[in-house]
């Protein structure tokens, strides 16, 4: 059984489609990411799954129940963990007090010290929350998300506004939780974050899923066009290149191709035959960022929405 199953989900605010026919599944134990620019519908999706917002139509199952049904919500809320976009910290408490308070809500909470250890706040356990740095507050926030031993954890843009060091430690924490078997639904607008954490990703744009799959093959980036780059010797080659360069600037050459094996063979064969010393040979696929920007690019004169 999937941890999350979403089929043809729709939700609109004041006639604007915030979520427009979205479908995806998240397996148990998986880290799944919703990637998209601000306003793409990520938070709306997550809030419907949490049972915080009502949907307009479509089928939604979270841990086997419908989060929109009131009588299921209590059951569900004891089994999910939620980390909001906002740093919802209660500044006058100490770290331990906040965790103890929230632990009291759950039937079988994780021991406080275990959570403190897990989120790396042992030295700050008795410090006031307002004295913590942004990264430490975010880790406390995640601690509150996991204190009830959730089977499923929602993380809505968990590293937005954090410095690079704090982002790394947050990533490590998410890796640890995932390794323990917690299913994680993550939203983000950072490509590197999704690449580092998620097994699969759905890219949202204006409420629609425009691409889905593992980050490594998203938008066909494991196949298709690559760019071959190299530099010719300063004196110029003794013979013409066997393949027409796509771009050439002085001695730097770039060739875009869908058939890198053949092109590389021709270039290297030619270089060996003509004793041309080729330097800086490099083959690059589209980065996830290239794919993402292409998928989420807003065309100015676009009359209708792109189809998924």
């Amino acid at each position, binding site marked *: 059984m999937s941890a999350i199953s979403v089929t043809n989900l729709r939700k609109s605010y004041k006639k604007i489609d915030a979520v427009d026919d979205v479908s995806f599944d998240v397996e148990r134990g998986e880290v799944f990411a919703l990637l998209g620019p601000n306003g793409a519908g990520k938070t709306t999706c997550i809030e419907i799954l*949490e*049972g*915080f917002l009502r949907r307009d139509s479509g089928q939604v199952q979270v841990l086997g129940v419908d989060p929109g049904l009131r009588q299921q919500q*209590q*059951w569900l*809320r*004891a*089994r*999910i963990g*939620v980390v*909001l*976009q*906002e*740093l*919802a*910290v*209660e500044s*006058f*408490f100490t770290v331990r*007090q906040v965790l103890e*308070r*929230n632990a*009291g*809500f*759950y*039937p*079988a909470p994780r021991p406080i010290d275990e959570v403190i250890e897990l989120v790396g706040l042992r030295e700050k356990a008795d410090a006031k929350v307002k004295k913590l740095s942004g990264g430490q507050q975010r880790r406390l926030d995640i601690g*509150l998300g996991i204190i*009830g*031993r959730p*089977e499923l954890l929602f993380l809505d843009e968990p590293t937005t506004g954090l410095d690079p060091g704090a982002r790394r430690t947050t990533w490590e924490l998410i890796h640890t939780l995932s390794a323990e*078997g917690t299913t994680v639904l993550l939203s983000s607008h950072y490509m590197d974050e999704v690449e580092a954490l998620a097994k699969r990703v759905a890219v949202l744009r204006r409420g629609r899923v425009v691409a889905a799959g593992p980050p490594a093959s998203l938008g066909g980036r494991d196949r298709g066009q690559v760019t071959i780059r190299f530099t010719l010797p300063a004196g110029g080659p003794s013979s013409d290149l066997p393949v027409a360069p796509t771009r050439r600037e002085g001695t730097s050459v770039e060739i875009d191709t869908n058939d890198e094996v053949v092109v590389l063979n021709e270039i290297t064969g030619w270089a060996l035959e003509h004793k041309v010393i080729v330097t800086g040979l490099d083959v690059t696929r589209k980065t996830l960022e290239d794919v993402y920007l292409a998928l989420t690019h807003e065309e100015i004169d676009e009359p209708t929405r792109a189809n998924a």
Partner: protein
Amino acid sequence: MSASTTTSRRSLVPHDVRLIAHQVRYEQLAFWLNRVGAIFTVVFSVLFLVMLGASAGQAHISFLHHLKLIKYYVPGFVAYGIMSACFTTLAINLVVRRETGQLKRLRLSPLPSRVLVVAIFVSTTIVSLVQVALLLLIGRFGYAVNFPVSWLAFALVLLVGIVSFSAMGVAISTVIPNQETAGPVTSIVFFVLLFLAGLWFPLSPHSGLEKFSNYFPVLHFIKAVNAPFEFQPGVSPWAWHDLLIIALWGVVAVIVAVRKFKWAPRRS
């Protein structure tokens, strides 16, 4: 791995009382740990009484059977203390918690909303009663102002006041857009109504200002708290008319609160 799956949903319900006690404990902790808030609420009412008692307390009010002013101030500041805890402090607290996402996160925790509502109400009541006790003791031992004669009538006034003004506090929190304006908005509304209701300078009966203030609950609450002290001959300790108007405001506030209450921060 997950022990929680073995706990049935039904078994959570009898734990409501334990959960309420748990949450009240942390509501109280949060209130008293926020020193500025606690001082603003509790110390203010006490300071007002002490300062006014020392300066103007020995004067007499000509139109209230030459009542000593301090005997008007003790019930008056009991009313002030309750309104301050239930209206101003509760409203600001709710707006701050809503706008920082704390209410939303509580909503998404397994803590039932009814438990949270009861716990906040109980906590507000505790803060109110602490003030009432302090003010009565200062009045009795500092200024020789007697305790209420009819404790039963006094308890009823406290109950109606705490419930109604708490409802008004929740209601006004729903129209305040952000935490920056929460303090100024509630304080201005509160202090203007207090002033017009004659908390500092008693209103002479049938004055224009009294007629105006009669539409609002503050003057009625000051009168209702006064009544059980039986300082004025011929005035019943049971201020039914005043209590009814306060309760009507309370009912309207409950309707507004239930219809308009939001858990999530307001989106830009």
